[in-house]
């Protein structure tokens, strides 16, 4: 039974006992366990190789792209004419749509309970059916607070318990959860392929004699850096003067068989300063005596 279907005055929550105690201590009253999820799919993965074959050049791509031309001229049909780093905007759009829908549903459930916000949000993402279908599920505990007008939109945070209380004591109000993803695909140029295989590539080797086996693989470095840069820009552009606190940046490189696909994901708590930051007194160093 979802929170919105609940009719009794009893409530459910995902809070641990400690977090529940801290929640009451700060004046927050649990109202119910709320959830939101969305499943989306995209069908662009299989088109990676055809992007080279039909000359899907960088002019037709949206967002970041960089082309690496072969310096050798025509060598053979196996020798790649150019390489490409490109932003996989269709993955980002599908992901953003799914996250937006899941969050909207989560907050709608919280609003229906008369909540001021949702704390202890847990996010879960699962790939279904190989890599083309993707599910995002969010859950958390809706909370209310007495004697305060409800905000237009409930706040949401991954934090709960003492961590949330410390955040507020430090002068930050929880605003929202922030998640962003960027995907960058790499179609290696002849030199990149050559370097990635340690100079051992029958097809790519033709014409590559004399190419550097040592040194940085520039195209890969640019792609990895771009993925990290784009995802941070994406999240930063949505902050509007707020702070992204406790952010975690995770990057995974998937070997699709047609070249690396780099997915960078960032998540954290969007918080807003509501009072001057009180300077902490110098902490007292201690050593805890313990049996082991």
């Amino acid at each position, binding site marked *: 039974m979802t929170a919105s279907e609940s009719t009794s005055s009893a409530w459910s929550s995902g809070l641990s006992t400690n977090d529940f105690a801290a929640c009451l201590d700060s004046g927050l009253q649990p109202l119910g366990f709320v959830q939101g999820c969305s499943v989306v799919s995209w069908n662009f993965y299989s088109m990676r190789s055809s992007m080279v074959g039909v000359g899907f050049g960088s002019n037709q791509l949206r967002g970041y792209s960089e082309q690496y031309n072969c310096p050798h001229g025509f060598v053979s049909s196996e020798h790649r004419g150019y390489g490409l780093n490109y932003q996989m905007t269709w993955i980002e759009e599908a992901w953003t749509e799914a996250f937006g829908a899941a969050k909207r549903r989560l907050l709608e459930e919280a609003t229906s309970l008369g909540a001021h916000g949702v704390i202890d949000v847990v996010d879960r993402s699962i790939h279904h059916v190989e890599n083309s279908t993707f599910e995002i599920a969010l859950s958390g505990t809706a909370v209310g607070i007495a004697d305060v*007008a409800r905000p237009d939109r409930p706040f949401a945070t991954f934090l709960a318990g003492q*961590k949330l209380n410390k955040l507020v004591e430090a002068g*930050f109000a929880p605003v929202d959860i922030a998640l962003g993803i960027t995907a960058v695909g790499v179609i290696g140029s002849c030199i990149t392929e050559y370097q990635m295989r340690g100079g051992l590539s029958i097809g790519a080797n033709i014409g590559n004699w004399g190419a550097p086996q040592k*040194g*940085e693989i520039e195209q890969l470095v640019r792609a990895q850096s771009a993925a990290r*840069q784009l995802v941070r820009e994406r999240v930063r552009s949505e902050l509007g003067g707020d*702070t992204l606190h*406790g952010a975690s940046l995770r*990057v995974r490189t998937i070997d699709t068989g047609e070249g690396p696909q780099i997915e960078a994901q960032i998540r954290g708590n969007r918080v807003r300063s509501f009072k001057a930051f009180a300077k902490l007194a110098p902490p007292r160093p201690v*050593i805890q005596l313990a049996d082991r």
Partner: protein
Amino acid sequence: MASEMRAAVAALGAAPSRHDKSVTSDLSIDETLLLHGMGYEPVDLVTGISIVAIPYGTFIVPYGQGGPIELPNATEAVASAFQSGSERLRKECATAGGVGVVGVEVEVDIDGPTASVTFTGTAVTPIRHELASPGRPFVTDLSVRDFVLLERAGWAPIDLVAGAGFVAAPVQGVRKTLAQIGQNIELPVITRSLQIAREQAMDQMQTAALAMNAAGVVDVTIIDGPLGHSRHVCAFICYGTAIRLVAEQHQRIEPDLVLAMDDHIEFQASAIR
């Protein structure tokens, strides 16, 4: 606490100040508070990465060859990846207006013919320029807690320094293998290979620290063992934070001893949790 929470929730109705610049950080609230207590604040989450090619054939060693064989191509590749990645991190820090990067997470990956090193950390800056900028941004993998303790002791981080050593221990011949059956003996080629790799790596790290006039290196992390794809290659990678004394002399920290009164309880049955 309740009044603070009410004030926080009530403040959500107001827009953020126009003067507030968006900040991203991977620090916890405890770390942010500690950092603030030192006179610093986070400005941006910054990264630096380098991926370097290791030439084909580097890890191939002739069967039955005598002693350990040093692999300078692999050693140079990892050292170069550390340096380039660290420089990119520092450049991002400077662009963000930071004076240094703390809590840097270092990831090292040797995947066949490529070596990659990735740095992720939070750039920090003095609050309202209370502290003098140290010039070239510092980089440290120390946590904020360790950074605070170091500063209180009169020391300052300069940079991350690293070293790497790759040495192949050739597969021994059949005759030697048969002669060792049923005996507990030391494998001198592998032992020596590990020793050479370690000495090379530590030497590089200390040389790098000396080059920047550091007094020492703290919090050294060691990654060692056989390479996943080439088990006969002994790899030794080490990195840590080079530090220097900025106070006139070391400031002694005298921690208080505390005795926790709560017992550590272990539940044997999960059903009663």
